[in-house]
């Protein structure tokens, strides 16, 4: 599929949301669209889905079956989750059993009879995911799919993406919180200033790291800091425990460490 010189704006007098986008997605490829809020990620995704029409240029060779998971599922509808998904399956010419299979896989079975407006945000989001997957899309478009999902469902997304690409499909995912670490072999596009450019994968920092707070005896702190830095960890802060947590009444510096290479910083460990 190709964006061929695509320009888009929401009104004749509006500023361009996207300018001169010329990019392609190959079969089996996953593209992660990065950018800050309001940069135009959703617009790009909706142009890919065919929900929006380019103001200039064209989106060419779009696969016949597109699955689009909108950023916010439209839950204000007088259907139960099961009824809704059966109807969406029917729109796609699919059997109700295929909707049931996805409901089971996305752990929605217990919500079959729940009215859409009564679903929690995350569950409604899963209904949105299910409706996009029923038809086995050749192009799957996920707009911030992690929003509101529980940890079990989060782990399902990379799995589903891998299945779609393994079957020769394309996947376009937008993400502004850097949760894409789980998507292997993804290409990254950066949307900023209405332009879409190829980006390197976001640095592994911030994505795969954790912060550990460790309490050590004051006398040993210089040696521990040096040792941790020697091992490549990043010291974010060294602070006195009493200063930070006076109710405990015990002294001794606390270290906050993360992998990397910053130097230690005294943050008030004098009491």
């Amino acid at each position, binding site marked *: 599929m190709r964006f061929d010189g695509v320009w888009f704006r929401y009104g004749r007098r509006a500023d361009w949301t996207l300018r001169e986008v010329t990019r392609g997605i190959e079969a089996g490829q996953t593209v992660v669209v990065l950018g800050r809020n309001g940069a135009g990620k959703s617009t790009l995704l*909706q142009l890919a*889905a*065919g*929900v*929006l*029409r380019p103001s200039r240029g064209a989106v060419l060779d779009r696969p016949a079956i*597109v*699955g*689009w998971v*909108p950023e*916010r*599922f*439209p839950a*204000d*509808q*007088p*259907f139960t989750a099961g009824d809704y998904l059966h*109807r*969406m399956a*029917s*729109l*796609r010419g699919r059997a109700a059993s295929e909707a049931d299979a996805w409901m089971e896989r996305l752990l929605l079975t217990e919500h079959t009879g729940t009215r859409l407006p009564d679903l929690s945000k995350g569950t409604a989001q899963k209904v949105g995911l299910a*409706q996009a997957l029923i*038809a086995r899309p050749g192009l799957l478009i996920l707009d911030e799919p992690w929003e509101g999902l529980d940890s079990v469902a989060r782990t399902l997304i990379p799995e589903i993406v891998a299945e779609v690409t393994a079957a020769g499909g394309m996947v376009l995912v937008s993400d502004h919180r850097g949760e894409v670490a789980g998507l292997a072999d993804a290409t990254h596009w950066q949307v900023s200033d209405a332009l879409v450019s190829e980006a390197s994968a976001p640095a592994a920092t911030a994505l795969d790291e954790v912060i550990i707070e460790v309490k050590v005896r004051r006398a040993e702190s210089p040696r521990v800091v040096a040792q941790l830095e020697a091992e490549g960890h990043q010291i974010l802060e060294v602070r006195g425990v009493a200063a930070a947590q006076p109710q405990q009444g015990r002294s001794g510096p606390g270290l906050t460490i993360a992998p990397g290479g910053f130097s230690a910083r005294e943050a008030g460990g004098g009491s």
Partner: protein
Amino acid sequence: MTSLVRMRLTGFLRGGRILAPAIAVLVVLGVIYGGGASPAAIAYGYSAAAVFPVLAWQSKLLLDTEPDTQRRLARVAVGGRREALAGLLAAGVLALLVCALAMGAPWIFNGIDTGQAVVSGTLLGVLAHLLAVPPAVALGALASRAVTRGARNGIAVLVTAAVLVVVLGLQGSVAPWLVPPVMATARALNDVKPPPVATVAVLVVWAVLWCGVAFGAYARLRRTRT
């Protein structure tokens, strides 16, 4: 596409938004038939003209029931053209049901004078309602949120057009062809004697051409207004 038509009708009926136009239709029927029995052609001619704005309004309500994002999901699922067509069909089916109610109800309350030209009058009445349904659906569609993008614009389009249908439809109007032949049909039927075939033919061609332009405009606008 039938699935989408059914889904939209179900959504509209379950949401309870049909209540307001349904009450409006009952009020209109009460006004038309409250004064006693009239010959079928005359009664139905007025009925078709009187329910026209209500049919347009309920068409707009039906098309506006679905959240914008759901309309776009339907577009992704069945394609832009079929999504737009399914909305028009759903509105048309509902309008036909309301017309059937508008034509059937007076028989229960003895609103139709059974003494003269009942069959021809009823057939002309069916024609009058059939000539009112497509323009009403087209007007409702052009006033729908997908096209007008805001509640205020939508109501402005609907009210202005409904007033113009009456004003420009009056006898001696300067530009009667700008609006569908709703008033012209009511006038043609305002006699116990059936109108000449030529008059009926002109009304049908007029309605078809007007609808062609209106639906064409809707299809064109919906290409970019999703």
